[in-house]
């Protein structure tokens, strides 16, 4: 559901979820928050990444990709990333997004 966009980040076609979307290497004009979730060094492929705003309110959620990956195109500012996975696994990380920058989180749960 995503396609290459030469010179910029992936572009979503409609509203397709980017589960398993390859990490971008050029943020373009986006404020990218991305990363991978691992457990014992292996990717967590069944689970969800949620983005909460500075008030703790839910903003977006994506399923983790086969490689444990997730990706958001946020507004600039402070965010909390929350990971949910089977077995009651939860983890949180704080992150500050900025236009034109990629914030990459490695989340071991």
């Amino acid at each position: 559901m995503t396609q290459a966009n030469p010179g910029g980040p992936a572009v979503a076609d409609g509203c397709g979820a980017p589960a398993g979307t390859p990490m971008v290497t050029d943020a373009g004009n986006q404020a990218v928050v991305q990363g991978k979730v691992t457990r014992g060094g292996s990717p967590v492929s069944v689970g969800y990444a949620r983005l909460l705003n500075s008030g703790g309110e839910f903003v977006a959620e994506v399923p983790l990709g086969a490689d444990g990956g997730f990706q958001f195109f946020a507004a600039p500012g402070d965010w909390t990333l929350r990971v949910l996975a089977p077995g009651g696994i939860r983890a949180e990380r704080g992150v500050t997004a900025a236009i034109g920058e990629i914030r990459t989180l490695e989340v071991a749960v």
Partner: protein
Amino acid sequence: MSRSDVLVDADWVEAHKGDPGIVLVEVDEDTSAYDKGHIRGAVKIDWKKDLQDPVRRDFVDKAGFEALLSGRGISTDDTVVLYGGNNNWFAAYAYWYFKLYGHRDVRLLDGGRKKWELDSRELVTEVPARTATSYAAQAQDTSIRAFRDEVVAAIGSKNLIDVRSPDEFAGRLLAPAHLPQEQAQRGGHVPTARNVPWSKAADEDGTFKSDDALTALYSAAGVDFGTDTIAYCRIGERSAHTWFVFHELLGQRNVKNYDGSWTEYGSLVGVPIEVGDGA
């Protein structure tokens, strides 16, 4: 209409998923999720490929919907149980869409795919073989579908509920935060719209909040339950979730989903737009 008429839980699905007359249908934002594993016996509907006209911006017509459901082996009298990821976002959209074409018995799996997965329930890759049917749809029920002129006319007179995130409502973002930010139209919201993000209607596991909690949520945002309501988002999926809450859970009449939503409204010439966080 009560909750049990429109929502089923995972135990119900486990007990009834093989019953004649029950069809499980997965509809996901991530259209590849089904192929990686789905509830045993479930068929897939692709919200984009199957439900949208390939050329015009509109839904498939009645004949197209009949052909789709016939091909999936779904009968007019079947109980269709929809589920999907992201709090049933696209499953709720499909629910509304099935109702638009008059399907009588449609339900959502409460919590959708996410709760099913987080509870470590079985997912299989085997695709069921269902015999084709001759599905008969009804003409579109436009009492649940709003078009742009109705939205403009509703400014200041009906409940307009913008269910996007606060940043989209204010005009700081043009798409949800997990999608690239397209710049195809103006940012902001329909004047007098209240911002109640769709996701507030669900708990973290994707299940719907109680009727009392939902009523309190929308009342606190200034929604008048004595007035007709139009819900919108960016392309009409998240607002279908809120339509489900108002029309199916809370039993409100005269509730419409504006599927043109912000990608249409924000591109119209001459209509009023408000920016900022609102009242």
